[in-house]
């Protein structure tokens, strides 16, 4: 198929940036979206032009490195996938496709479609862990049975890949879904209970400090999340946050 790509080009963070048109032909429906960009880039290189810079690594939907805002949707029109798993069969011949970076104050553009997500790491550093040393003297793994239901819910929350689609999608650029996934994972497990209070307060404070917006329950994040992280986690985090502040 033939497509008309409109891609955000920005030399560096200080550059203003603009949309540039790139027509592309002979795109196979079996290609992934990023393979289509590979083909575009090979063409640009052969003409001596600079290829479009975009983040990607595992290309199987788990590392969370790829991003892209495609026709106004984080990770494009398909559901439950990252951009690297989006296939061109979701588009049709003659389509115009807008490709932009994830946009938020807390996710500044580095170059073209690449953004800086280090704010996400800093939120985890504020409390996204259980303080246990690697001494080799921890108790036996089966010493504390955990209800299967809770273990499964903790797992579902823990599958967040930290891609920031939730932030890019949210009209408030809120990171509540991302933060609540980690808070929930630990809140549902006995191992996380000991530090639960400090964890939720510190992570939420850090989130605010980094410039992410607040949650107004539109639910857009849940729709666009490639891993199906549930809004229930935000409710759980609000409960944890409230009770932590009351107990303070």
């Amino acid at each position, binding site marked *: 198929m033939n497509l008309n790509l409109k891609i955000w080009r920005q030399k*560096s963070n200080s550059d203003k940036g603009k949309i540039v048109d790139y027509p592309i032909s002979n795109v*196979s429906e079996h290609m*992934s979206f990023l*393979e289509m960009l*590979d*083909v575009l880039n*090979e063409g640009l*290189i*052969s003409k*001596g*032009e*600079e*290829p479009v810079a975009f983040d990607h*690594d*595992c*290309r*199987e939907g*788990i*590392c*969370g490195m790829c991003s892209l805002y495609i026709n106004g949707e984080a990770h494009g029109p*398909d559901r*439950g*996938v990252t951009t690297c*798993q989006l*296939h061109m069969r979701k588009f049709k011949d003659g389509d115009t496709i807008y490709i932009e970076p994830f946009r938020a104050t807390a996710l500044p553009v*580095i*170059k073209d479609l*690449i953004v*800086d*997500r*280090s704010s*996400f*790491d800093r939120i*985890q*550093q504020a409390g*996204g*862990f*259980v303080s*246990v*040393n*690697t001494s*080799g003297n*921890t108790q*036996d*793994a*089966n010493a504390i*049975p955990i209800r*299967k239901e809770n*273990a*499964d819910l903790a*797992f579902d929350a*823990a*599958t967040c*890949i*930290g891609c920031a689609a939730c932030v890019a999608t949210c009209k408030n650029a809120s990171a509540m879904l991302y933060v609540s996934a980690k808070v929930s*994972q*630990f809140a549902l*497990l006995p*191992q*996380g209970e000991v530090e639960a209070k400090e964890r939720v307060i510190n992570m939420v404070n850090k989130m605010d400090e980094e410039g992410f917006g607040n949650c107004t329950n539109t639910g857009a994040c849940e729709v666009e999340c490639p891993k199906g992280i549930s809004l229930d986690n935000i409710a759980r985090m609000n409960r944890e946050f409230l009770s932590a502040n009351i107990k303070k």
Partner: protein
Amino acid sequence: MSMNSKVPDGEIKDKWTKYKDTINLVNPANKRNIDVIVVGTGLAGGSASATLAELGYNVKAFCYQDSPRRAHSIAAQGGINAAKNYQGDGDSTYRLFYDTVKGGDYRSREANVHRLAEVSANIIDQCVAQGVPFARDYGGLLDNRSFGGVLVSRTFYAKGQTGQQLLLGAYSAMNRQIARGKIKMYNRHEMLDVVIVDGKARGIIARNLVTGEIERHSAHAVVLASGGYGNVYFLSTNAMGSNVTAGWKAHKKGAYFANPCYTQIHPTCIPRSGDYQSKLTLMSESLRNDGRIWVPKHKKDVEAIKSGEIKAVDIKEEDRDYYLERRYPAFGNLVPRDVASRAAKERCDAGYGVNQTGEAVYLDFSSAINRYGKEQALLKGLDVNNEKTVADLGKDIVKSKYGNLFQMYEKIVDENPYETPMMIYPAVHYTMGGIWVDYNLMTTVPGLYAIGEANFSDHGANRLGASALMQGLADGYFVLPYTIGDYLSDDIRTGPISIDSKEFDEAEKTVVDTLNKLINNKGVNSVDYYHKKLGKIMWDKCGMARTEKGLKEAMTEIKNLREDFWKNVSVPGEVNELNTELEKAGRVADFLELGELFAKDALDRNESCGGHFREEYSTPEGEAERDDKNFSYVSAWEYKGEPSKAELHKEALNFENIEVKVRSYK
């Protein structure tokens, strides 16, 4: 010259405990004065960084991704082995040790493997304490599944995302130390050389991938946890950025490279679909617990499938060839990966491949769906003879076990694997070879360590499923943090290592010159052009079946391709900016050298073992013929200016605790 592996004396089951009791320690106050660089933040690097920082060392950790959480360990699906014997099915440390040595085709170092088996149980305890949400049963206890090449259930898992959950565990442990200031994290940085001062590894040269700046970092020891080199084949299940550069630069600075030809070709990957393809996707080995692998028995059915006249489900049971169950009745679909891959290749080469390229076999879940469905129907008091009820209930169970893998398959192939068998074909997945290390995980360069997939030590010529996660975390959490202390105890009075020395000057100059050369070359071909050509040579001549003739050709072709690369490669953009093509160019330049050493190693090893299969050394039935009399050694290659001139050093392998036998899964 023979290699000294520094394995301690004594009974195998006591070696590690006794060794730990007697090696030198660094006291807590002195650890604060010692810096350690860790390159790579996967399971090995992440867990090592966290543990070294907990112990009190100052750690500088580097990764090329935008966050340590994105290292490719995250993509590991099926599980992690540990000799917990929670299932009471006769598992033990010895059995895990035995299975791993046998699975590795008797080409690994006994003492290392036993240590790995010993610490495996501790890994599970540690991860649960960190809040890793492993799968549990209704009693609230941990669940297990089986993997290839073993007869017990010892694999712990978190659906098909075990690697992700374990890596996020290590990442959380790192975050705790980053917050305390004990780890300084360098994201989007790539190591481009190791710096050696007075014969010891004392630092690295790294490129800031955002600004293009070249940086000097010093430390008292350097740990490489930079993963494997499967991307030398261009197409593999590795991440796009996975590369050999850190390991190869270390090799050129004196670290011996061991067994480069031992590559794991994983039997269950999604077949390739076209020339534009950038990578291959794995379908977890855990699927072989419930999936049955087959091709049609008759060529006429193969042709009918290819022409679209019939579909897989139309072929009757008696017209299907479940070739693994036929050839290996004892292990069936759960034979080790090398055996399963070669068997698939054998059927496809014979003309029984089931897609247009002729390179695909079926992985079928219909029996499992039926079996689980009947069990559920019985439990729920429903009609076990109602096909629809049984199928629906069975699909629910299969979905709960492998849901994310089935979804991934459907997204990529656009077929529903609950209704029609998956198509799979082998693909490059893991490299057992790597930097040579001794029992301490130290390379032949003092103060330079290699852990995880980057080293060669534990898997011999073939790795068993769910053992990579085990090895990465064992090295990082429980082995290196002890052994490195023995070396660093000599450094308590050294003080900070200066970056203003002629060694750093020289290393930086080499790096800068290479980058400038690439950018100023202004040739005619893209980096990918060369990478794809190299990949084709590797797959055709150094892939699942190798011959003397093919390997000799590969060496010449790779050398010629490398010369052409340096003449005609084109890298757009500037050095001092974010430049993804420049990053790729540096990595491919190193793959073009490694590839030649790979072929040389495969040519030198006149036997078939594990992932290394030489057609000249096989039985009439196509089984591998190992030669223990002449090749029971590790090949450790010393760099001598050109890959083809590399000098071979041998580490003899002695098996005192396991009887060396012909590996049979029949």
